[in-house]
């Protein structure tokens, strides 16, 4: 355990990690685990994994795992402090870039360069879906059924303009009936 105040450690730790989180908040999960489990000993690896699973299952950005860790370390204040350290400075950076982008608007080269980033954005969305599907199937009582639900849902969302709430509801029913 370190001697410094837990709030200070939360701020420094998550601030540092957030600046490395290119590709999304979940990109730095291994670094986060090192900070929480090894550097500060705030919880064990299982506690960390459970909290991430919870943040993933609960609605909202997966980065909310940072809030759960903050809560564990220093209660409600810890939760807000950790979230702010993780998302505040990077949001400011995004704001600054958006401003700069507006000033450069109309430069054709910029639009063309940005277009080169689009496939990476879409590719990483697809990858996160695949990883999520694999993780869910691994943990399910009937992996093939879970994969079937995933596949059906992917087809529905791709081919239909109806609300994805239909597939989430369908998934909930299938889960309640067969995946216990």
């Amino acid at each position: 355990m370190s001697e410094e105040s837990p709030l200070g450690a939360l701020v420094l730790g998550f601030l540092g990690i957030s600046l490395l989180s290119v590709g999304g908040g979940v990109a730095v999960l291994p670094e986060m685990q090192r900070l929480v489990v090894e550097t500060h000993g705030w919880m064990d690896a299982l506690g960390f994994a459970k909290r991430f699973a919870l943040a993933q299952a609960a609605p909202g950005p997966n980065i909310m795992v940072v809030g759960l860790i903050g809560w564990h370390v220093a209660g409600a204040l810890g939760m807000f402090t950790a979230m702010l350290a993780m998302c505040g400075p990077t949001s400011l950076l995004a704001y600054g870039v958006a401003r700069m982008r507006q000033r450069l608007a109309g430069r054709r080269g910029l639009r063309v360069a940005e277009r080169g980033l689009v496939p990476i954005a879409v590719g990483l969305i697809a990858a996160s879906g695949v990883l999520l599907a694999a993780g869910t199937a691994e943990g399910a009582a009937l992996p093939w059924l879970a994969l079937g639900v995933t596949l059906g849902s992917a087809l529905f969302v791709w081919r239909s303009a109806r609300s994805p709430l239909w597939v989430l509801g369908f998934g909930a029913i299938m889960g309640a009936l067969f995946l216990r």
Partner: protein
Amino acid sequence: MSETITPGKAALFLGYAKIGLLGFGGVAAWARRVIVEERRWLSERDYAEVLGLGQILPGPNVGNAAVMIGRRFHGLSGALLATAGLYAGPLAILIALSLFYDRYGTTPGVAPFMQGVAAAAAGMVIGTAIKMGEKLRPPPELLAVGLLAVAGAAVLRLPLPVVVVTLAPLGVWLSLRRAWKAGAR
């Protein structure tokens, strides 16, 4: 293609609140659904470009995109409202879960029906990526960059910063080269 609609401040907040509260398994799929399909704030291409930029910047992508999209429509207050909308609901839920954890000493187990929801949410994310790829129709070399991103992150399980830092210059270069060739012709 239909026209895009400029949201008011309340609509911006409420749209992002919906994205946050429905975002099971992450918010990427619902963000596109609400912003591009339901509310038509941005075209498919505009949204994808904002998201691409959000990805090479550090920080949560959809959070970065919320700042940029909020700012585009209503400046600083727009950025704050979109961000607040995105995080407020989920944060309230997390507080409830944390209280539960403190009282009972264990994380609430993921209920069976939630496993089904997670499986469906995973499919939703995959379906969203396919839909975006289909609508954006990238030229073959950029499609290849996208597939490399999938392979690097999902198959090889490389750290995401490595994938982004390697592929971003490649994507930008290929895109510029194509434009330059088209211009030279």
